[in-house]
């Protein structure tokens, strides 16, 4: 079996005609980390809910660890571990009690159950807190315990839905190294959703970019970045200008592509940023457009996102938060 997770044409519409997924297909190779990247509300969590048997799609099919999610949900459940966006821990119970109950519902008993719980407590550095009630844990500790609970029954496939959202920077870095360590585990496949570009870039072997319920791009982070030609040039203008006006002015600059103006920000791509910047500045000056600052950067996933979703990532994220 090459792909531990395979989904084809997933569609999910919620009441009130909210189309959360609009034909999502993806495939995650066994033993790898697959990243599902997108802004808030893109449909990542809905995809995870379907793949983990929590909800049923309106159309499409999915296989996890070789089992059909729709026909054999019980088999899928035995094979997967799931760390949802909402923690799902029992706050009144201790860390150890949470692990033991989780193991029990998977049929683990006695010595095997106890030693597995102890092993995970040590592995995630929770020894001091293990017998304290979870209510008193820090956010980072709760998230670690979440992952430990998801791993209790040694799943083949682990789902991590926004594992670092809401964590402070230190805990986030901690969680990253934890995930990188898990990725090294023999045969464990991880599907991780995130809306942090750098997180997907550094942890995922392959990733799919999701926007408005659709996969807009898929590949390794390098492939996705490689599809973009050259460097990104971002010019901050002193005043708002007309899109067409600037475009016309820059038409004459060689090796410059994908020019876009949004408010006072001008974005473009160039085969070589260093070579094109002087020409860009000259062309703008000739047009009487005053420039506040210029930055040149190697392509990032942010640019990839802009390329495929047609808007900047941060903008899409903000849009989702608006009521």
């Amino acid at each position, binding site marked *: 079996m090459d792909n531990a997770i395979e989904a084809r044409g997933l569609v999910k519409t919620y009441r009130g005609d909210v189309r959360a997924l609009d034909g999502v297909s993806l495939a995650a190779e066994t033993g790898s980390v697959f990243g599902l990247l997108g802004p808030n509300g893109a449909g990542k969590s809905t995809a995870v809910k379907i793949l983990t048997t*929590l*909800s049923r799609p309106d159309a499409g099919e999915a296989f996890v660890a070789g089992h059909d999610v729709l026909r054999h949900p019980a088999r899928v*459940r035995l094979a997967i571990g799931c760390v949802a966006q909402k923690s*799902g821990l029992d706050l009144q*119970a201790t860390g150890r*009690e949470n692990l033991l109950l989780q193991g029990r*519902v998977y049929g683990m008993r006695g010595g095997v159950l106890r030693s597995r719980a102890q092993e995970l407590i040590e592995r995630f550095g929770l020894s001091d807190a293990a017998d304290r009630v979870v209510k008193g844990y820090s956010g980072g500790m709760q998230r670690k315990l979440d992952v430990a609970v998801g791993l209790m029954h040694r799943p083949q496939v682990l789902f991590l839905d926004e594992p670092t959202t809401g964590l402070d920077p230190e805990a986030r870095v901690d969680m990253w190294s934890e995930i990188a360590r898990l990725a090294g585990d023999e045969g464990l496949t991880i599907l991780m959703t995130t809306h942090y570009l750098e997180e997907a870039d550094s942890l995922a072997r392959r990733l799919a970019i999701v926007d408005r319920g659709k996969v807009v791009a898929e590949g390794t982070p390098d492939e996705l970045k490689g599809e973009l030609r050259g460097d990104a040039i971002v010019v901050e203008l002193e005043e708002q200008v007309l899109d067409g006006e600037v475009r016309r002015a820059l038409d004459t600059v060689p090796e410059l592509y994908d020019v876009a103006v949004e408010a006072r920000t001008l974005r473009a791509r160039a085969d070589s940023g260093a070579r094109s910047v002087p020409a860009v500045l000259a062309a703008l000056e000739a047009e009487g457009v005053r420039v506040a600052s210029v930055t040149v950067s190697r392509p990032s996933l942010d640019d990839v996102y802009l390329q495929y979703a047609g808007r900047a990532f941060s903008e899409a994220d903000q849009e989702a938060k608006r009521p």
Partner: protein
Amino acid sequence: MTHVLTDTLFMTQRHFRNLLRQPAWILISLVQPVVWLLLYGALFRKIVEIPGFGAGSYIDFLTPGIVVMTCLFSAGWSGMDLIEDIDRGVIDRFLVSPASRSSLIAGRLVQGAIVGIIQSVIIVVLGLIVGAEYPGGVAGIAALTICAVLLGTGVGALSNAIGVLSRRVETMVAVSNFVLLPLTFLSSVFMARALMPGWMQSVATYNPVEWAVNAGREGLASSPDWGVVLSRMGWLALFTLVCTWLATRAFRVYQKSI
């Protein structure tokens, strides 16, 4: 099937343990029946002197009422805990595991039943201390407890159904406040049925709270009519079954909404 039972046992343990970790709750649930028993017992003491009341001592009359009322009220709020579990993602965590779906509700009901039995015994003992007499003896006390717990299980299931459908604490509070006290007053918990207005007597006929109080009091009488006790118990069992079925339907609605 065994897996449903073991999972229910694990979930019951979880709910029971969490309850024991809330000392304030334990204190309140112990103090409340004491207050009711002593307060109402003193307030309505002379009520038995009304011709036609049909009981010698008000505390004898009141104690089974308080047992039923206590079980009713604890059960009425049991949906709150489910709402919290849904909000926290605990339910979803178990839904993506092989845990039996029934155990997610059944564990709560079993825990409620155990708490109900403990509360009933405590109130019966308290009643003894303040002078109540139970001519029906142990069999009568058992009948009262069974009826109170059956009622509690049914109402607890309904409360969980409302919780899982509304998923809002505010709705839960409103519904419980609106329903629990009127149900109590539309039964003979405090007042002999013969002295209630005619329309109230008619309503009480269909009130499960009345079935439980009626059966409990009959069981504790010096020569109980077991026909009355068993028929009421049968009705209560049916009520509990219907409510439990409604709760599982409500839970499916929730599962579909995810």
